[in-house]
């Protein structure tokens, strides 16, 4: 299996997959909640929440990474608290890479889910309520199945974005092989050393393959679910 990829390259690919997987899975519940809040609820400061969610899309990734370092670094207010109370360390660990990837991918995920929620007719949810379903049951039995295509699309988009995240990751958790050296960081590192171009090219190929695979999977899944949800 390792025939055409060197051990360091494999390590980067495996780490990237792990980082992206956890970045997506861990942020999905929050993503659904935030999308729901932005699509359906009205509360004071909604525009501010909307702004914060979309900030990583517009800010230079280096700035996002630096802000993460300030907040979640061992000296940072949140980072220090989490380390003391839960023993959870983000700085210079793969978990930090996952956090950076999740933050960077969050706006894309929320956007896709929000669009799906806005496409659900609230009248169906009203109908469910008149049939006796409370708010949580309405969400679980009507809203959630109907927005499933959007959730899948959002998750796959976030996964693909996380696979490619570079700027915030390298600023926040550096570029430690086996610990925080994700696929893009590894490509960057290989390009810095003489003779590293072939390794960089191989990893670029892997990147393209994973991205294409993710897009195809999302298409197929979304089509299957859309067919189910359209009621035919």
């Amino acid at each position, binding site marked *: 299996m390792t025939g055409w990829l060197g051990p360091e390259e494999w390590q980067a690919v495996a780490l990237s997959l792990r980082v992206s997987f956890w970045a997506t899975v861990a942020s999905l519940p929050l993503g659904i909640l935030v999308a729901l809040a932005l699509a359906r609820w009205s509360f004071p400061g909604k525009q501010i929440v909307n702004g914060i969610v979309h900030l990583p899309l517009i800010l230079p990734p280096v700035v996002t990474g630096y802000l993460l370092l300030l907040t979640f670094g061992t000296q940072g207010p949140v980072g220090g608290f989490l380390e003391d109370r839960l023993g959870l360390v983000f700085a210079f660990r793969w978990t930090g890479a996952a956090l950076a990837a999740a933050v960077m991918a969050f706006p894309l995920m929320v956007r896709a889910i929000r669009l799906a929620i806005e496409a659900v007719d609230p009248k169906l949810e*009203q*109908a469910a309520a008149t049939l006796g379903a409370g708010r949580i049951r309405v969400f679980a039995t009507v809203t959630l199945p109907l927005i499933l295509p959007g959730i899948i699309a959002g998750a796959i988009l976030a996964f693909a974005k996380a696979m490619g995240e570079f700027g915030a990751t390298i600023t926040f958790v550096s570029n430690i092989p086996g610990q925080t050296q994700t696929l893009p960081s590894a490509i960057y590192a290989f390009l810095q050393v003489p003779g590293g171009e072939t390794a960089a090219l191989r990893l670029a190929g892997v990147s393209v393959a994973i991205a294409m695979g993710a897009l195809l999977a999302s298409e197929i899944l979304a089509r299957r679910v859309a067919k189910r949800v359209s*009621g035919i």
Partner: protein
Amino acid sequence: MTLSVRIRHALPGLTLDAAFEAPQGVTALFGRSGAGKTTLVNAVAGLLRPDAGRVAVDDWVLFDTARGLWLPPHRRRLGYVFQEGRLFPHMTVRKNLSYGARFAPVAPNRRETDHVVEMLGIGHLLDRRPGALSGGEKQRVAVGRALLSAPRLLLMDEPLAALDEPRKAEILPYLERLRDETDLPVLYVSHSVTEIARLATTVVVLDSGRVTRAGPAAEVLSDPTAVPSFGPREAGALVPGRIAAHHPDGLTEVEISGGRLLIPRESAAPGTSLRVRIEAKDVMLSLARPEGISALNILPATVTAVTPGTGPGVAVQLRIGTDLILARITRRSAERLGIGPGLACFAVVKSVAVAKGDVGGAG
């Protein structure tokens, strides 16, 4: 069971201030578009929180501003049939039908479920999805879904308005069966006098957010002062009758309190009760019993009231036996014939529509 409603709610361009009671049977909430009907029903269902008022089913209070009480919609147990069906697109018909049962305190058992499915004629649709149903089938499933949530009351907001005439004709018999086979009070919103005449036992007329008339269907529909609400072309009375005989020439004889009517063949057996709708525009008046006329139905009548309309017509209320019917004639004819209360005359009925079941309050 009786639903009592008192609601005040300000909307842009309309202030709803209505109070009425819906007893057993079908209570039709009639009004033109924008009269506030849907707002009223949504307030009863809890989908809208009105400014003030009280809604109760017998002594079970759903909403009362005086006591600061407001039950959320899922705790009201009112079956709501919407104009557009609102079936869940991701569930089969079977799943749609059983959706409410899991939240009901006492879920309908297998026999009750089968009965509702049979009554609505949707047994062959159970494994289909809503996207594959016709408009009429969707509405029948929607009625079944509401019924199987074990409601205390059924709300129907213009359930036929989105359907074409053949589809309406297809569903109406199912709704009549529903009225006759269950003892559930039904609040039925409509702007169609024809539907109301067929289904209603009680009629509540809503105009610009206010109740202008309420009472048993036969009484409200034969009230000449209510003619402007229903529209002169659609106004007409309801008369209870009983099939007396079938004639070999294809006519059916119906006995009403003031005589007998001949109508096109009805399938029901002699002795069956039915309600006869006589539209005001289909009644002519004659001072003497007319001779040599093609109309078969000529009934002796007494004028009880004459109400001028806004145009050249007047609405004349007539007593035929113990029933009241309406005739719409021109003001000129009324003056020429000297029509006024107490006058004895003959009503020439050109056509008659028939609906099954008894007329509320008069039957």
